């Protein structure tokens, strides 16, 4: 049984549950404590000791169910036993579902079925498994019986063999889903992280969304850790007295005052005009995910004027929200000057020295007045101004790009075109707070 359990854990790992080797031992101990008799209990026990979050719990439960899902083979009522037939033929004729399932399991283990990685291997593996179960003997038997004139028996065996074949393929497909999903998904996700956002395929959107949420969550966790900073040299009299009560109030051990580092407020200003539309969708997704995990983020979208979209993002699910944001502000031709003016009206007063302003956009203002003075005002008030530009640095300043004129008023201006870059920039941003 441990063999089977270990395979299950491998499948779960592939599906995205983090399981260390120590946890494997814990899981085995848990399984031993509850026994293997009741599948539901075993599932609960393993979930309890392996899953570390609600998401992992769901993933694990799905994997568990899929792993232990077995099709009951369809077979006719059992006729009298025939001892003159090979084992497999006997089991097939007798409709011995349990026996067949066990034989299939053993054969699968024998050929290393959990090593399956590609869809195209399904048939090959199924065939190998059947061979191991004794298919050649069965086929010889069928031919022999037909030659001997027992057509009815031969027909029934033939029928059962076909059913068995289908079952074996089904089994292998499940194995594929269990064990190969992990590896292929990993490869795919790694590739996705490096694809340029503007070149992203529609069908990858779902996967991207999960990936973006994961990144946002990771960043937010790191970011939400509370941090204290010692104000060196300022004595905390109350706590010093408390701690030194044991020394009759003589301050042997001093306690210094500490200040909590406040979570800085973040404002995001996202360009959703036609020129950056393909990227904008992902940027919106990212803001959405970030707003989900970081409290107190204010988001704005603009093309030729700026609207606040914090509420839209908070109230709707991502697809709806993105659509509504696009309706509210999207697809116009961008006018950075007017948009900055509108933003200043909306929120310049709310920018304090704790505020980080992030601008996502290509700075292509269609030769409108860029209003660099407003950018300067924002820069003067905010703790940090960060500009993320989906264009590579070499294109900044070409054509109608006003990037070089805005750049002096950003603490940081980076090209940000793939998820990897996005993650790195955000990570740096949050780490370098204060």
């Amino acid at each position, binding site marked *: 049984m441990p063999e089977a359990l270990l395979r299950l854990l491998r499948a779960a790992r592939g599906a995205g549950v983090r399981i*260390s080797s120590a946890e494997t031992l814990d899981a085995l101990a848990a399984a031993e404590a*509850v026994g293997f008799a009741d599948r539901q209990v075993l599932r609960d026990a393993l*979930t309890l000791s392996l899953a570390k979050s609600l998401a992992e719990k769901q993933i694990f439960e799905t994997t568990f169910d899929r792993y232990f899902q077995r099709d009951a083979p369809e077979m006719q009522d059992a006729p009298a036993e025939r001892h003159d037939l090979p084992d497999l033929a006997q089991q097939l004729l007798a409709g011995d579902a349990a026996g067949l399932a066990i034989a299939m399991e053993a054969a699968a283990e024998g050929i290393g079925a959990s090593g399956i990685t590609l869809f195209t291997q399904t048939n090959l593996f199924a065939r190998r498994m059947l061979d191991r179960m004794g298919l050649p003997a069965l086929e010889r038997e069928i031919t022999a019986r037909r030659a001997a004139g027992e057509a009815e028996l031969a027909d029934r065996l033939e029928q059962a063999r076909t059913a068995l074949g289908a079952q074996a393929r089904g089994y292998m497909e499940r194995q594929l889903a269990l064990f190969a999903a992990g590896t292929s998904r990993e490869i795919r996700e790694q590739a996705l992280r490096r694809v340029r956002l503007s070149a992203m395929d529609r069908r990858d959107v779902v996967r991207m969304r999960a990936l973006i949420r994961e990144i946002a969550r990771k960043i937010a966790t790191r970011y939400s850790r*509370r941090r204290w900073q010692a104000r060196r040299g300022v004595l905390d009299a109350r706590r010093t007295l408390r701690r030194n*009560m*044991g020394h009759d109030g003589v301050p042997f051990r001093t306690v210094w005052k500490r200040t909590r580092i406040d979570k800085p407020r973040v404002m995001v200003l996202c360009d959703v005009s036609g020129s950056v539309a393909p990227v904008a969708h992902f940027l919106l997704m990212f803001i959405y995910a970030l707003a989900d995990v970081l409290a107190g983020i204010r988001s704005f979208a603009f093309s030729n004027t700026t609207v606040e979209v914090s509420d839209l993002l908070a109230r709707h699910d991502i697809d709806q929200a993105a659509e509504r944001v696009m309706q509210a502000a999207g697809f116009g031709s961008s006018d950075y000057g007017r948009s900055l003016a509108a933003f200043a009206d909306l929120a310049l007063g709310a920018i304090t020295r704790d505020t980080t302003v992030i601008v996502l956009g290509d700075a292509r203002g269609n030769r409108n007045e860029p209003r660099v003075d407003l950018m300067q005002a924002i820069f003067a008030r905010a703790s940090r101004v960060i500009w993320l530009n989906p264009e590579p640095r070499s294109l900044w300043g070409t054509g109608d790009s006003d990037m070089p004129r805005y750049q002096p008023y950003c603490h940081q201006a980076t090209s940000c075109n793939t998820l990897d870059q996005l993650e790195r920039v955000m990570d740096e941003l949050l780490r370098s707070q204060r």
Partner: protein
Amino acid sequence: MTIDIAQQIPSIDSVETGLASTGYIASRQIATAVFLAMRLQKPILVEGPAGVGKTELAKATAGYLKLPLIRMQCYDGLDESKALYEWKYGKQLLYTQILKDKLGETLRDTASLHDSLEKLHLVDDIFFSERFLEPRPLLRALQEPQGCVLLIDEIAKADEEFEAFLLEILSDHQVTIPEIGTVHAVVPPIVLLTSNATRDLGDAMKRRCLHLHIGFPDAKLEERIVDARIPGIRDSLRRQMVSFVQQLRGLDLRKLPSVSETIDWARALLLLNATRLEPAVVHETLNVLMKFEVDMQLAAKSVGAFTEQARREAGL
């Protein structure tokens, strides 16, 4: 001794009935978690929305095993001296004052300063012995002779240093006090930690725990819970109520009503002598279920439809 606790509970079923005998209706998964926690001596990290019975589970476990419950409420700024132990400073001072003469006597016939010190060394451990130790919840839990249920409530509210400090207690059931040495648990306590995910806990902490997530119960379980808690309630009313609350959870509310709210609501309805769910009564008592004004307004719109549906589901 350690085997005792584990042997008291032969199976998951007995845990389930045991918890039920204290009035806590546990789902199969919860019973399994408690069973495993006792067998494997691992702490349970209970997560879930507020009011689904996380803290209650610890109380029920203690009641069922007839062990004392030691509760530690976590908050920002909680430190060792409040969680683990503290010296009884006052007593130490008082005793040194009282024993001053005695000490003087002891030291009188020493020839040199060196000798005096030598003599003092022989007695210096007196004032830092267990007599002068004020045990706080964690130490008390380790010292409990029969074992106990230790509830560390809202662990996410404590800071990370404290979380790291807990690791030794959780995994090895021991704690180190510099002046005395390492204190081992007499009987490893059953530890429950609760959290409602205001902060992500560290991986080291998560790894050491069984991870139990208690969600909102389904209608069947919720009815059983209400029944266990409010025995006087009529069958039909109970069914309507539970159905109503279940529908309410489908709404997009800021704070979904939890089991504790259902129970409070049942009490309120009983006090008002309601025999069945009428929109008027529901409107009056909605503030028991809802904690926010916006939620109340949102829910108020659906009261009519929900009561109707609830009545149909209750077969009236």
